[in-house]
């Protein structure tokens, strides 16, 4: 760039108390440019962007951020307030909490207009409708009077964007604008941002961890790790030839398929290993789980007097039919609210359901006592590694809990030995006895997200189940950690011929892990079949959208 940049950040550092989280970063944004700030959680990318507007509470800022020749970091608060919203606008991750729930969307946008541009009320009202229409909200004249909760997630984010654009800012800071949205909406919002960026001629700084978005969106990319900028450059160049090892890891973090492939997946469920093809055994392999017409409903309150005596029904899962074969991964794919997690809980026998569900010929019983034997066969790993481990139990207690139920005859030292083996199996700890003994006495808060997820896997596998239900096992993890956890799962499956019931919204994870897949939308099964067939030749429109967004 020959002319001076719109924003020139020089040696920006941010510290909380005595703890520096951003260590003197430099970058610049030219006018009319789309820049992506990429990094994993904790890399300091959001804090860096927020501190440009001095919106981080209790932070000590250092360095310079020259916007239009003025230093944003030392400018008096009064002047900065004028810059916020007028010259630099911001959109946030979660539109539900960024909008005031007690004001209509129109009033909130009009407030910005009257405050910043001094428009009269009537003019502002008309401008609001234009803005909303521009962001693609249909029937904008009616929607201005809607409260945030009356809009859908995508519409709320569009309203947020309309608000940010109200004063024609020259720089838009977009903090994970699509993360809280469903996959199928992400592309639309991104396209909208591109269109508006071009028509308004503003610069956009997109903060994200999603490389797919960056590839589609940004001219330039800035990669952050642990509060340092490790690499920046033109998007195409960085993706083609990443220089820094971290960038290389980040770009290579797309999960890789490394599972035992099966052939002959016929309708009759007769499955054979590739290597078994020669041995011409006719004995059919039985599925570990068979679901037929599975239906799960939640009671919902009815309005009025009727609600005193009976409940309404919300159908979370409707007529799901599938089979999970031994040693294979059965993927269930869908967006939030599609009923896939409910299906997982039903498969675990933790929710009442209708329809048939056989686990190796057995069924869940209403009495918890009679289920004990079956519990040993089916285990679970949940999504959030922070809520899936009790914060007040040690590693040994957490991982060894299943042994207390299913192998209560073990002595204390046998039990400890089993816990140590299970931890080693999931790649936690070392063979060093002293260090291991200390690991056993540690509490979950001392472990990172990926390590916690490994603990959860160890807890599930210690009682040697045949089927593991994986409910979004990696979606709360950073991409590089996600890849490691998936590799571990693939490794365990090969080694122990485990079956997985994998529930996820992430097409990449399905592509890497699953043998067969079932796509859900609003509780109903949209499509199912072998993974290559569903992902390569999706029959249903919805599947096509999911696959195309994932790139």
């Amino acid at each position: 760039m020959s002319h001076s940049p719109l924003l020139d950040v020089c040696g920006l550092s941010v510290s909380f108390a005595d703890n520096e989280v951003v260590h003197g970063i430099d970058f610049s944004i030219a006018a009319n440019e789309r820049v992506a700030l990429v990094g994993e959680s904790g890399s300091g990318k959001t804090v860096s962007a927020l501190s440009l507007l001095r919106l981080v509470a209790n932070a000590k800022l250092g360095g310079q951020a020259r916007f239009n020749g003025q230093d944003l970091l030392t400018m008096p608060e009064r002047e900065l307030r004028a810059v916020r919203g007028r010259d630099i606008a911001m959109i946030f991750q979660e539109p539900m909490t960024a909008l005031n729930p007690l004001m209509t969307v129109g009033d909130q946008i009009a407030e910005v207009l009257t405050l910043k541009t001094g428009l009269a009320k009537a003019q502002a009202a008309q401008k609001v409708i234009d803005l909303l229409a521009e962001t693609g909200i249909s029937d904008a004249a009616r929607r201005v009077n809607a409260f945030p909760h009356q809009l859908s997630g995508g519409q709320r984010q569009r309203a947020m964007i309309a608000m940010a654009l109200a004063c024609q800012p020259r720089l838009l800071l977009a903090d994970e604008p699509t993360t809280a949205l469903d996959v199928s909406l992400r592309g639309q919002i991104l396209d909208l941002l591109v269109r508006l960026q071009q028509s308004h001629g503003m610069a956009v700084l997109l903060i994200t961890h999603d490389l797919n978005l960056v590839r589609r969106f940004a001219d330039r990319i800035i990669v952050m790790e642990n509060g340092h900028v490790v690499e920046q450059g033109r998007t195409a160049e960085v993706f083609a030839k990443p220089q820094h090892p971290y960038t290389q890891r980040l770009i290579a973090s797309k999960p890789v398929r490394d599972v035992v492939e099966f052939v002959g997946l016929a309708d009759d469920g007769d499955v054979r290993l590739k290597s078994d093809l020669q041995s011409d055994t006719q004995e059919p392999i039985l599925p570990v789980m068979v679901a037929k017409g599975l239906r799960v409903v939640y009671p919902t309150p009815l309005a009025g007097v009727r609600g005193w005596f009976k409940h309404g029904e919300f159908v979370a899962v409707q007529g799901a039919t599938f089979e999970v074969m031994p040693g294979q991964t059965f993927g269930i794919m869908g967006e939030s609210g599609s009923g896939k997690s409910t299906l997982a809980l039903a498969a675990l026998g933790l929710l009442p359901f209708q329809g048939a569900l056989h686990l190796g010929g057995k069924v869940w019983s209403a009495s918890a006592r009679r289920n004990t034997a079956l519990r040993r066969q089916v285990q679970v790993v949940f999504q959030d590694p922070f809520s899936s481990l009790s914060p007040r139990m040690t590693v040994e207690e957490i991982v060894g809990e299943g042994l207390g139920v299913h192998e209560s005859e073990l002595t204390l030292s046998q039990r400890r030995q089993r816990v140590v083996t299970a931890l080693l199996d999931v790649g936690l700890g070392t063979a060093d006895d002293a260090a291991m003994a200390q690991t056993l006495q540690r509490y979950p808060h001392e472990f990172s997200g990926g390590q916690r997820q490994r603990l959860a896997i160890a807890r599930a596998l210690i009682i040697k189940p045949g089927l593991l239900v994986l409910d979004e096992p990696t979606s709360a993890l950073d991409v590089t950690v996600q890849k490691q956890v998936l590799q571990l799962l693939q490794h365990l499956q090969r080694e122990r011929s485990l079956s997985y019931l994998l529930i996820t919204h992430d097409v990449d994870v399905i592509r890497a892990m699953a043998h067969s897949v079932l796509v859900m939308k609003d509780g109903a099964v949209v499509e199912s079949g072998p993974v290559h067939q569903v992902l390569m030749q999706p029959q249903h429109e919805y599947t096509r959208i999911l696959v195309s967004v994932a790139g």
Partner: protein
Amino acid sequence: MFDLTKPPANSLSPGRRAWLRFKRNRLGYWSLVTFCLLVGLSLVAELISNDRPLLVRYQGETYFPMVKDYSEKTFGGDFDTSTDYLDPFIRERLRQSGNWALFAPNPYGSKTLNYFAKAPNPSPPTRDNWLGTDDRGRDLLAQLIYGFRVSVLFALALTFTGTVLGIVTGAIQGFFGGKTDLAFQRFIEIWGAMPELYLLIIFSAVFSPSLALLLILLSLFGWMGLSDYVRAEFLRNRQLDYVRAARSLGVSNWLIIRRHLLPNSMTPVVTFLPFRMSGAILALTSLDFLGLGVPPGTPSLGELLSQGKNNIDAWWISLATFAVLVVTLLLLTFMGDALRDALDPRKADAA
């Protein structure tokens, strides 16, 4: 990458970390130390304030009046009644050559009436009665020491029963949810609507007043607030993934409650303990003030306050009692504040 080889600097349980955070709050920590010290001292009040000597040496023999009754004749008196060691005649005998008596620092018990007082009751502070006497001639300092002990022990007992009842009922509602929860909640609404004070008045008229009766009556109504908090914690925690994981491991309900839910639901319980204590002390004091509390003759702060009201010119009664109450409640409040900060989940990570 998964570096578990380096020994953890401090592998502290969450409870232990909360304790360290509590300790770092100096006001709260020293309040706890002072309060424990005061309670400890009041538990051995007999050694501090007693109308009987701890040890008597009389004519070559050793007596233990603190634990044993001796007739006045033992010490050369005329009557076969228990010795009044405040009697100048007995004092005189005990001071004769070779005899000695070891008195407590404050030579009055909780019920001692000094028949040999030099000033009319209530008497202002003198050398004999450091804080003066009340309107019946009892030593005020002794009254305060024993009254404090009764209040604190009563508050501890009430807090204990209230907390246990609250946890049990809250746990049942929260864990089982559904119809159990619904029925129990309606019961609590009805139970909570009962006029507590009227019931107390009625019962104290029907039965002879006693600490046990008070404890039962106050416990019957004191558990509901805590029960709601425990219920809410259980409702929140039971749908967390670690409870689901335990269920899918086949862990029994009882074990899930004990091992997973209870330890993770104790934050409101612990946070409220000091405030419940001060509430209980205040409740006992106000009931005593109204004359609905402890039976007559029991040392009680509330009864002293009402004496102070009736003898408004005897400033030492109301002032001293007021000071004891304020200090006690302040200490508890400081402890409660520190505890609340220590257990605040938003501050937990800052440690």
